[in-house]
């Protein structure tokens, strides 16, 4: 953990050297997800309600999903660029060091410009929070925190899978985008609007619904109390991801430089 703290400080310092560039990319990040927000806004201007969810409720959901994703992306960015590490043969260097490989890959890159996105997520969430007529209590606030933590873990797991695949293909595979960027993109609405089939897939295969739809129902007083604990269950998703990673490391053959 102390090592990770060191990595964190180093990356923060290196970003701060180029302050203007950093600021610009932050604004860029903000704008990019602002697009999606504008899309949601326009759709609700026209339709008002979808599957029983109002604009404010959808916004709450979008804000949380975006925050989960951006947090995961900020810290797990190293996995996202892992194909590069494997391609260049830099993974050899990581293997010979007497530290955990995952920690080192995590530390190889941190993307602070995602703060733009996180900022937007906070704004959207705060707005949804303010206008929605959710009666907040301690348990609900705890649920939100669990959602954010669980969500970051699930997205982190997906990044881990993405990286593990690189061991076998040396290239990152584009179709993994469906699970990461796609989930962010389509997580703007509660999962149930995509129909029953998708909801099932998102419950049992990749647990998006556990970190988004079910706890949200609880927040809106429509679900059972145990729904609030589902994000914790979702964290189990990390186990198969770690297994795949271990398998990948064993399979790894250096690609030279």
């Amino acid at each position, binding site marked *: 953990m102390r090592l990770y703290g060191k990595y964190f400080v180093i990356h923060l310092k290196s970003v701060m050297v180029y302050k203007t*560039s950093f600021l610009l990319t932050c604004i*860029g990040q903000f*704008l990019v997800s602002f697009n999606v927000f504008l899309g949601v806004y326009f759709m609700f201007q026209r339709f008002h309600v979808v599957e029983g969810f109002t604009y404010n409720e959808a916004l709450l959901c979008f804000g949380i999903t975006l925050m989960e994703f951006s947090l995961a992306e900020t810290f797990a960015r190293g996995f996202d660029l892992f194909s590069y590490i494997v391609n260049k043969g830099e993974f050899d260097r990581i293997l010979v060091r007497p530290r955990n490989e995952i920690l080192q890959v995590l530390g190889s890159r941190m993307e602070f410009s995602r703060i733009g996105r996180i900022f937007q997520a906070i704004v959207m969430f705060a707005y949804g929070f303010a206008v929605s007529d959710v009666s907040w209590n301690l348990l609900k606030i705890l649920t939100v925190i669990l959602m954010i933590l669980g969500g970051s873990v699930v997205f982190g797991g997906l990044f881990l899978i993405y990286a593990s695949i690189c061991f076998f293909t040396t290239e990152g595979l584009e179709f993994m985008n*469906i699970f990461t960027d796609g989930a962010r993109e389509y997580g703007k609405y509660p999962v149930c609007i995509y129909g029953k089939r998708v909801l099932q897939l998102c419950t049992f295969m990749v647990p998006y619904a556990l970190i988004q739809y079910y706890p949200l129902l609880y927040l809106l007083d429509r679900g059972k109390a145990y729904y609030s604990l589902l994000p914790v269950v979702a964290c189990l998703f990390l186990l198969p991801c770690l297994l795949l990673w271990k398998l990948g490391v064993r399979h790894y053959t250096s690609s030279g430089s």
Partner: protein
Amino acid sequence: MRKYLAFFRLRFSMGLQYRAAALSGVITQFAWGVMEILMFRAFYRADAEAFPMTFQATASYVWMQQAFLALFMVWMMENEIFNSITDGNIAYELCRPVDIYNMWFARSLANRLSRAVLRCMPILVVTIFLPAPYGLMRPVSFSAFLLFLLTLFLGLWVTAAFCMLIYMTCFFTISPMGVRMVATSVVEFFSGAVIPLPFFPDGFRQVAALLPFASMQNVPLRIYSGDLAGKEMWQAVSLQIFWLFALTFIGKLLNTLAMKKVTVQGG
């Protein structure tokens, strides 16, 4: 002209080489298309009256968008060009007896076309057999189909001309990141990549329709499904032609300006 055609051919056949990447891309695009259509279905169920296009036209719009993604996505810009400006390799390109603008333009067209050719077929073939409201519909009429092809090409031309503007500004700013990000998100929204233009609220929509961004994917995709027809359609086509000339003109102007003060970076 011949040398630009040669550039075009070279890039085109180069692009055709990446077949595995294309396959992976096609799978991704299917998934995105399915999710997009499911989303529209939910809204359609919520309030069919408020739906500004027929559901089938919307589904076709989504599939066409996925099939021809490579033609219209502004974020698919060429890093090679940006790199050559920032690292100074531009010097080699300047030595050649060709016009930089025309050469890059030919290159962009070829790259986009080759990617689209590889990727569009599987999507088009599969989606046309999907059950009625969800699949790709057949074009409303033969003349609409011909016009669709024409405007598809015009739209591609406008998109490429717009990207040229961004390449050219890189001569002045050197670091392309900021301009690029802002431009990409603006174009993405106003061209109808996030939600189709008819879904914009009144007032906002009319203004958006006049912008060059509406002349990209918006026109051909909506002509295909018959959503854009009659007088409105001809207006859109003439606007496309106008923007094509305007953007190309501005691009060339920037090009001459940039060539006058070009500094070769690096070493």
